[in-house]
């Protein structure tokens, strides 16, 4: 399934492209790396306000807070690049959190979701949770690619369905919609444990999110599958003419996104020590915001993994940094909104100039 032609050359991915300072002027480099500039600017501004902000602890906290969001944003990002949009991500996070937590409670906990369930190997409930969300992703892909339902509508439907499934599961006796808690040590270790690397101790959750980002980078930017995703996003007709199997590729795109949401849900349960049906609510919009700020185009075909990661980090820095210096939380909302609009407006004006 090789694709030739000019439909997906490097220019179609120019969303967040590191320029080459050696050859380009500083101005051009800044233009090409606006998200990085925003990120550094934010950190500098907060550090000027309070120098204590610059610490290993801050870095660790910000990366930890970003971990599940990176997973959701990677899922949302691959869908956006394929010229789709996925609104079902947040609710799938909630579904996976509830499913995995319900089967991984300590036997001594007083309000058991499954009172008679024997202790399962850790991997089994996690696989079930991720399996379910992956399957829902496949359904999303089928509805979009086969039934030709616009992605916005298809995933809006799935968002509602996924929440309904979570609520039914969560409401069954004897749980009756009570928050699930008392999860096992081995699950919570994924969310709060540390991995010793010589003198450094790195939270496991960061390692997982980082690994996922690297896998995504290889998948999207180094494989034929990735090129096909960009090709479909850039120009579906041209991609089809070039021999890309659109149906199969889109199903894979939504399935991969579903798997990301599932893993994010499991980690969300792990780091909070529990789950409820409200978990993940509106995470999909945060993820889409992070993607567009990171240079992913909502029109498809444009966006890079490091841009997505940077977009998530921008919001994590805002939220952590402004809490750290004690700024009124409502200002966070305004600053986030300004950055979302500003970043996209900047991208648009740059796109006009380069045309």
């Amino acid at each position, binding site marked *: 399934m090789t694709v030739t032609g000019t439909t997906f050359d490097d220019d179609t991915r120019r969303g967040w492209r590191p320029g080459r300072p050696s050859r380009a002027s500083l101005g051009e480099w800044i233009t090409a790396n606006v998200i990085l500039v925003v990120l550094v600017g934010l950190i500098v501004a907060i550090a000027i306000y309070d120098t204590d902000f610059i610490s290993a602890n801050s870095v660790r906290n910000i990366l930890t807070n970003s971990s599940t969001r990176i997973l959701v944003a990677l899922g949302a990002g691959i869908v956006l690049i394929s010229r789709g949009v996925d609104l079902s991500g947040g609710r799938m996070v909630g579904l996976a959190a509830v499913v995995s937590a319900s089967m991984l409670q300590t036997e001594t906990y007083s309000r058991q979701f499954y009172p008679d369930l024997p202790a399962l190997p850790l991997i089994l409930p996690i696989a079930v949770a991720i399996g379910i969300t992956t399957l829902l992703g496949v359904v999303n892909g089928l509805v979009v690619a086969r039934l030709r339902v616009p992605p916005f509508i298809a995933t809006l439907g799935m968002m509602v369905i996924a929440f309904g499934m979570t609520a039914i599961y969560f409401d069954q006796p004897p749980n009756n919609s009570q928050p699930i808690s008392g999860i096992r040590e081995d699950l919570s270790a994924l969310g709060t444990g540390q991995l010793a690397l010589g003198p450094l101790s790195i939270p496991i959750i960061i390692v997982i999110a980082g690994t996922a980002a690297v896998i995504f980078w290889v998948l999207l930017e180094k494989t034929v599958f990735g090129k096909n995703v960009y090709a479909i996003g850039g120009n579906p007709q041209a991609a089809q003419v070039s021999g890309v199997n659109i149906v199969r590729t889109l199903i894979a795109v939504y399935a991969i996104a579903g798997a990301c949401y599932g893993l994010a849900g499991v980690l969300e349960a792990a780091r909070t*020590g529990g789950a409820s*049906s*409200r978990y993940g609510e509106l995470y999909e919009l945060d993820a889409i915001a992070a993607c567009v700020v990171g240079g992913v185009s909502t029109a498809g075909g444009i966006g890079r993994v490091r841009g997505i990661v940077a977009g998530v980090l921008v919001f994590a820095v805002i939220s952590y940094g402004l809490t750290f210096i*004690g700024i009124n939380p409502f200002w966070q909302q305004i600053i986030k909104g300004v950055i979302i609009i500003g970043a996209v407006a900047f991208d648009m004006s740059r796109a006009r100039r380069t045309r």
Partner: protein
Amino acid sequence: MTRRSGAFAMATASMLLLSAVPATAQDATAAEGGLPVADCAAPDKAIGVAVFRFDNEYLSLVREAIGAAAAAKGAQVDVVDGQNSQPAQNEQIDLFISKALPAIAVNQVDRELANVTLEKAKAADIPVVFFNKEPLPEVLSTWDKAYYVGAKAEESGAMQGQLVIDYWNAHPEADRNGDGVIQYVMLSGPADHQDAQIRTVESIKAINDAGIQTEQLQREIGDWNRAMAIEQMGAIYAQHGDAIEFVLANNDNMAIGAVEALKANGYFGDSGRFLPVVGVDATEPALESMRAGELLGTVLNDAVNQGQATFNLACVLAGGGTPTAENTGYAIDGQYVWVPYVPVGPDDIQ
């Protein structure tokens, strides 16, 4: 307005807790829990129960309690989910009225719009018991077959404050810098939520009224959930560290979030380091956290008695009676039944 919890209230509260907590945890029937049984005949038709949203954790407990109360009485209930939408709930009320149900119990989606529900019920002469979300007094007073069952939010704040006072007085080491002032962090619920506002203010007011000075190091507004509280507390701890002497959260989810963040900073468990955190709701995870020696205390919003009282009033009204302390088992204050909150401190947990 604040009702201070005296020794008698505390004693009653502890007794209530002993009966109430196991009842929620084990699905006990109303009769087994030692709850007041209404003096009424089970109506022929179901009593309509409109809940504002099924996925709300607290209302699920009330729903469970109403169901248990009805089952114990051999009565039927028709419970519907308002899905947090007032228009959807209005349609459900219309349906109840067209079915000519003998009484309806309504957990209004938007308390300010309870007048619409009341007028519909009044026109059809179907008694209505509002619960958990209080109609405006001038609305409720327009019809004598309308009642409200609920808790006084300021009580929860005052009781949370009392938990802080008790710990502070018993543990001189809690005053880490020895200045006699409580340096605290407040994790509040959404700014537009009545309970959040009241708990934030009343808890501190109770502490100050007891003659203890306070200093707020930081206040953050959360969304009642754990994940956000973990992140907020992580940042707050990074900023203030060991200057923090107390953490007050408007609900248990956020309190547990604070506990999780403190765990990540080397508190609780085997560390031997402790920082008092208090919440409100007495959810099962909170009680478990207390048993593990993490969370200091919480305040029970008594879902079992709210559900039982709601059913008892509706049942009496359905039979054409007027609710009294004798036939419902709950003190009737005009058109109101106030179900007290119950403080849950370290001594209440086995």
